[in-house]
C-alpha cells in the first residue's frame, strides 16, 4: 500500500444489517473517490467510517500508510467534511459561523471576500443562516470547505439543494482542488461529470 488514503477489508454492521463487507479502496493526490449506490446503500455510513465516526467490524483505514485510529488528530487536521447536515448554526450569521469553524481546523491563507463573492453569498453575510434558503446554506458550507487548508475533502451528496449554477460550481471547485494536488471522497447517487481520475466504489 502506497496510497495516501487507503482501506482494506472494511466491514460495517449496523444493528442487524451488514452494510458492506470486505470493501477496499485507494486514493492518491489529484484523484477523486466516488462512492456510488442507491439511497440506503451505506454511502453515508462509509463516509462516516472514513471520517472515523463509526467503529468498523473489521478492516482499517490508512492515512499515509498509518492506521487512522492511531493518528486521529493528525488525520482530522487533514480533512474537511461536507455532511448532509451542514453543521452550521441557524441562529448565527455566516461570519459568526465561519469564525467558529476557523478554530476547528487549519485555515487557508486566502481572501475570504473573494470566496464569498464566488459562491454568491457575500450579500448574505450579516443575516442569520436560518433565514437563508437550503441552497444558500449549502453554499455557506462550501465556503467553510474552501477556507480550510486541508488536502482531503469528504463530500456527502454535495449537489443536494443546489441549482444548476451551484452544481456546476461544485464541479469546478472539486476539479481545482484536485488539480492543486488535493483529494476528494464523494458520495453521489447520480452520475457526475468531473474531469479527473476517478476511483469508484460501488455499494
Amino acid at each position, binding site marked *: 500500500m502506497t496510497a495516501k488514503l487507503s482501506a482494506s477489508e472494511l466491514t460495517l454492521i*449496523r*444493528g*442487524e444489517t451488514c452494510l458492506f463487507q470486505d470493501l477496499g479502496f485507494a486514493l492518491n493526490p489529484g484523484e477523486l473517490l466516488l462512492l456510488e449506490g442507491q439511497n440506503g446503500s451505506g454511502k453515508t455510513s462509509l463516509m462516516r467510517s472514513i471520517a472515523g465516526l463509526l*467503529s468498523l467490524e473489521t478492516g482499517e483505514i490508512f492515512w499515509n500508510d498509518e492506521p487512522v485510529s492511531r493518528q486521529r488528530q493528525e488525520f482530522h487536521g487533514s480533512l474537511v467534511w461536507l455532511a448532509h447536515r451542514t453543521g452550521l448554526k441557524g441562529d448565527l450569521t455566516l461570519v459568526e459561523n465561519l469564525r467558529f469553524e476557523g478554530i476547528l481546523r487549519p485555515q487557508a491563507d486566502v481572501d475570504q471576500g473573494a470566496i464569498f463573492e464566488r459562491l454568491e453569498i457575500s450579500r448574505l453575510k450579516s443575516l442569520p443562516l436560518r433565514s437563508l434558503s437550503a441552497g444558500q446554506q449549502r453554499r455557506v458550507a462550501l465556503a467553510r470547505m474552501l477556507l480550510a487548508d486541508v488536502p482531503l475533502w469528504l463530500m456527502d451528496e454535495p449537489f443536494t439543494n443546489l441549482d444548476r449554477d451551484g452544481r456546476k460550481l461544485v464541479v469546478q471547485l472539486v476539479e481545482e482542488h484536485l488539480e492543486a494536488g488535493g483529494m476528494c471522497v464523494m458520495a453521489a447517487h447520480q452520475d457526475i461529470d468531473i474531469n479527473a481520475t476517478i476511483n469508484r466504489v460501488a455499494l
Partner: protein
Amino acid sequence: MWKFFHHLTSPPHYYRVGATLIPWLAIPGLALIAYGTYAGLFLASEDYQQGDAFRIIYVHVPAAYLSMLAYAFMAFGGGIGLIWRMKLAHAVGAAAAPLGAAFTFLALVTGAIWGRPMWGTWWEWGDPRLTSELILLFLYFGYMALRSSIDDTAKADKASAVLALVGVVNVVIVHYSVEWWSSLHQGQTLFKKGGPGMDADMLYPLLAMIFGFTLLFGALLARRIRTEVLFRERRTRWVRELVLAPEGGK
C-alpha cells in the same frame, strides 16, 4: 498467549464452558446456603441485644455485599469491553445489572424488616448504609434504563459501560458523603464499628451464607451471560447450527 485468551473469551467457547461451569458453582453454593440457613436459624445463639431479630443478617449481609460485587463486575466488564473491545465483557455487564439490582433490593427489604424491631420503623433515613444502598439501586436503574433505550447493542454496550465506570467512582463518594451526613444527624447503624465481636456459632453460618450466595451469584451470572451470548450471536452460524441441532440445542 493473547490468541489463547481471545479463544477462551470467544462467545461460542464461553457458551460451551459456561454450561459445565454452572453446576460446579450452583451445587456447592446451594449446599452452603442450606447449611447456613439451618445453622443460622437453629444453631446460632441469640444475640444478647437484638434477640432473634439479628438472624436476618444471614440474608442481609450477603445481599448487601453482592449488590456491590455485581456493580464491580458491571464496571470491570464495561472497562474491559471498552479498552479491548471484547464482546464477552460487555455481555457480563448486561447480565450482572439485573442481578445486582435484585440483590440491592433484597438488601433494602431485609434492612427494612430488620429495622422494624430495632428502630420501630420500616425506614430510617439516618442509617448511612441503607441510604447508600438506595442510591446504588437508583444507579442500577439508570444503567438498565440507558441500556434499554438504545436499540443498537454495540452502542448500548459502550454507553452503559461509560455510565458504569462513572458510577463506580461515584459509589465511593456516595459512601463517604452519606457517612458524613449521617454523622451530622446522629445516625444509628445496625452494625457498630468496633462493637462486640461475633461468636463462632454466629460467625460460621454467616461466612457460609456469604460464600454460598457468592457461588450462587456466580452460577446465575454464568447462566445469564450464556443467554445474553446466545441472543447477541443469534445471527451467527454457530447459534443457528446449535438451535437446528437434533437435540434442540443443549
